């Protein structure tokens, strides 16, 4: 066995207490992060399973694998599970929960019990949703458009709506915890301008979670009431307005995409800084761009509605605002690239994910420019072009950010190193599989293949087959880390406090950290990313 410790194992948050009660009743932010890790991984594979079935059905033009109604449920639940039960919590609830107190030098989040409540709300929501899946599912699309969802669908809309409503409160409480923690619990000397960019981005994310999610909550509640009590708020045959639903829904759901991408940008800054051994170029601009994205993100929702019947003038306003929100994201990409100039770059697994992130996020972001152009959007709205666009950002961007972050902080979280060779292989498989899956979909979309189509005209088949082939490679790339992370918890090389020689308070404590994070309360007298003061590692930081 390769895991004999050199010295007696120090007390840390993992071994301080054993037993299921110590986990299920914990208020330690680090343990809660792991509780979330397990739960969201479960939902990732549920959503991924639905995706595989979708891609299998789309191998042939005819609807021959599942029935039409089943297919409609598959894409609806794929979307809802991936967005509400995987992506929205992922980085904030796992990496954010674990790292925010550590990075600012605090002993825990401001409200540890609310943190645990947040996880329980997520679990309750998840259980209700799983029940919804196994008792028939929901087929409204992840967007619940009325009047289909309120008056025509025969599936378990109310149950799905309630589950997501509850999950929303989990998200709100996490955001609330982070904002208060970052404001009130920074260690002495940790001024706002010394904060890691990860914290800036998590802060911006939390603001969006706080202010946006309640609107989704009330919207879903109104849909549930309408369906349950036969109201007519969104039903035109009863004097209601279906567009009102769309405005309310997208008012949250657009900022929601920034909840999903900002944390990945948070990770990106930390990883790029460490593996170029440099302070991020343009720290102030990168920090402010996170805030700008959060603010502007609230002003563009109706760009999802250009063909919905809104007025010409509304459309003009939302189009121009959508171009404004693109600028801060572009700034980040330029700054990360500039950071590499005259850096000292190593190609560890997290850094491979970081390279992939820049490439794929750039492509996804550029296609956003296409969609914001009114004349183009009319043609590509509700086609595979949109699907490709958002998957480039949410999978090529957010999920790669999440995986890169998991790998980067794995030694801190578990005290072990993952196997680097396998890590790099998985990163490459994910990158290759992802592009093969989703690039053909841009072409499909422009050619005119609408989304949410169970069957399609034969001329679209070749591209669909390519896409499905890619998805199998992508699946392998996702399964590998699951296996080797678990393996590493028992057999991985033991990590020291700072295996990457990275800057940041979290690396100044042991791997894994003690329950109260620091042996002694830190006092910060240095700037963020002080890589000029940290000696470069004597050799390549990881052994093969």
């Amino acid at each position: 066995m390769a895991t004999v410790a050199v010295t007696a194992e120090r007390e840390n948050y993992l071994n301080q207490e054993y037993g299921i009660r110590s986990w299920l009743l914990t208020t330690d932010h680090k343990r809660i992060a792991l509780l979330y890790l397990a739960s969201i991984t479960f939902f990732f594979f549920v959503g991924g399973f639905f995706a595989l079935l979708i891609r299998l059905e789309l191998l042939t033009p005819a609807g021959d694998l599942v029935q039409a109604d089943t297919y409609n449920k598959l894409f609806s639940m794929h979307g809802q599970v991936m967005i509400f039960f995987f992506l929205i919590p992922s980085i904030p609830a796992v990496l954010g929960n674990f790292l925010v107190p550590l990075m600012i030098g605090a002993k825990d989040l401001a409200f540890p019990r609310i943190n645990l409540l947040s996880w329980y709300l997520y679990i309750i929501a998840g259980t209700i949703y799983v029940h919804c899946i196994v008792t028939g599912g929901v087929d409204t699309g992840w967007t619940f458009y009325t009047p289909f969802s309120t008056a025509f669908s025969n599936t378990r809309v109310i149950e799905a709506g309630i589950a997501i409503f509850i999950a929303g409160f989990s998200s709100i409480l996490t955001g609330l915890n982070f904002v208060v923690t970052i404001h009130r619990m920074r260690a002495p000397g940790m001024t706002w301008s010394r904060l890691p960019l990860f914290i800036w981005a998590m802060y911006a994310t939390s603001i969006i979670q706080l202010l946006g999610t309640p609107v989704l909550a009330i919207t879903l509640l109104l849909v549930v009431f309408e369906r349950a009590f036969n109201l007519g708020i969104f039903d035109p045959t009863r004097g209601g307005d279906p567009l009102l639903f769309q405005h309310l829904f997208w008012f949250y759901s657009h900022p929601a995409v920034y909840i999903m991408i900002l944390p990945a940008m948070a990770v990106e800054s930390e990883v790029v800084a460490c593996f170029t051994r440099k302070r991020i170029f343009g720290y102030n601009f990168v920090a402010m761009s996170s805030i700008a994205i959060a603010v502007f993100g609230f002003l563009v929702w109706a760009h999802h509605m250009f063909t919905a019947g809104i007025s010409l003038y509304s459309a003009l306003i939302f189009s121009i605002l959508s171009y404004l929100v693109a600028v801060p994201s572009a700034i980040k990409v330029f700054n990360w690239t500039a950071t590499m100039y005259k850096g000292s770059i190593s190609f560890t697994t997290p850094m491979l994910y970081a390279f992939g992130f820049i490439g794929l996020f750039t492509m996804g972001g550029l296609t956003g420019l296409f969609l914001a152009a009114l004349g183009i959007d009319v043609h590509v709205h509700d086609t595979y072009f949109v699907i490709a666009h958002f998957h480039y950002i949410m999978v090529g961007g957010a999920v790669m950010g999440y995986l890169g972050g998991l790998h980067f902080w794995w030694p801190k979280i578990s005290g072990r190193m993952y196997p680097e060779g396998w890590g790099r292989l998985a990163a490459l498989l994910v990158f290759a599989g992802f592009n093969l899956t989703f690039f053909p979909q841009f072409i499909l979309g422009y050619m005119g293949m609408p989304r949410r189509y169970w069957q399609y005209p034969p001329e679209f088949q070749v591209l669909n087959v390519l896409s499905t082939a890619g998805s199998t490679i992508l699946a392998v790339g996702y399964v590998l880390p699951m296996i080797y992370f678990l393996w590493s918890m028992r057999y991985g090389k033991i990590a020291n406090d700072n295996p990457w020689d990275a800057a940041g308070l979290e690396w100044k404590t042991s791997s894994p950290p003690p329950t109260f994070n620091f042996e002694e309360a830190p006092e910060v007298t240095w700037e963020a990313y002080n890589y000029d003061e940290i000696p470069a590692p004597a050799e390549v930081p990881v052994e093969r």
Partner: protein
Amino acid sequence: MSDSPIAVEQHGPELRHHFVDAEQQRDAASLGMWLFLATEIMFFGGMFLAYLIYRYAYYNEFAAGSRSIDIWLGTINTAVLICSSLTVALGVRAAQMGKRRLLVTLLLITIVLGLVFLGIKGVEWYQKFEEHHVPGTSFNASDLEKPPYSHGEIDQRHEQIYFSLYFAMTGLHALHMIIGVGIFIFLTYYAWKGRYSPKYYTPVEIGGLYWHFVDIVWIYLFPLLYLIDRKPLR
């Protein structure tokens, strides 16, 4: 964190140990509650938006519906809530001054006022139920008075939207009141047990903030729902 005898200052059992000191804990709690109230504003905001849009579109029906709900009960309820906010504010002050019995009394009065509000709300809802103004299959608002100066008939479908929003908004508000009453029951119990003192009364303060917020939501709901068009009918 190991116990460092030098750093431990005098603090009560209420200091949670992830905080550096009581002041940090108090600041955190306060900021937390304000942020939570901001989320509540967004939550109610969605419904207020729906209300605004439909009121503009279906003014007649909204006016007729507004006339049909009991303005006296609504006014009494408004007075009840305002008084309860007074008792809450006085209660916070009592806690600040360490007056335990006064605090407990004021908290109890607040609870009673809250229950009075809920009771009156229940009566109002029951009235609507009897008049068949509850949205759903048995909805029938043909008994609504149409003032002579208005234009056109009352459209039942539009009227139903008024009442849908009426029940959704007052219902959500009432739910928040119930939660508020629950919180205050806990506060009263702990106050009676002597947990609060001039050095530590944060729960009373932030509980009070929540109560004030629920009160303010009602201050907006009342004119919007009850006072749309109360010109005397000729």
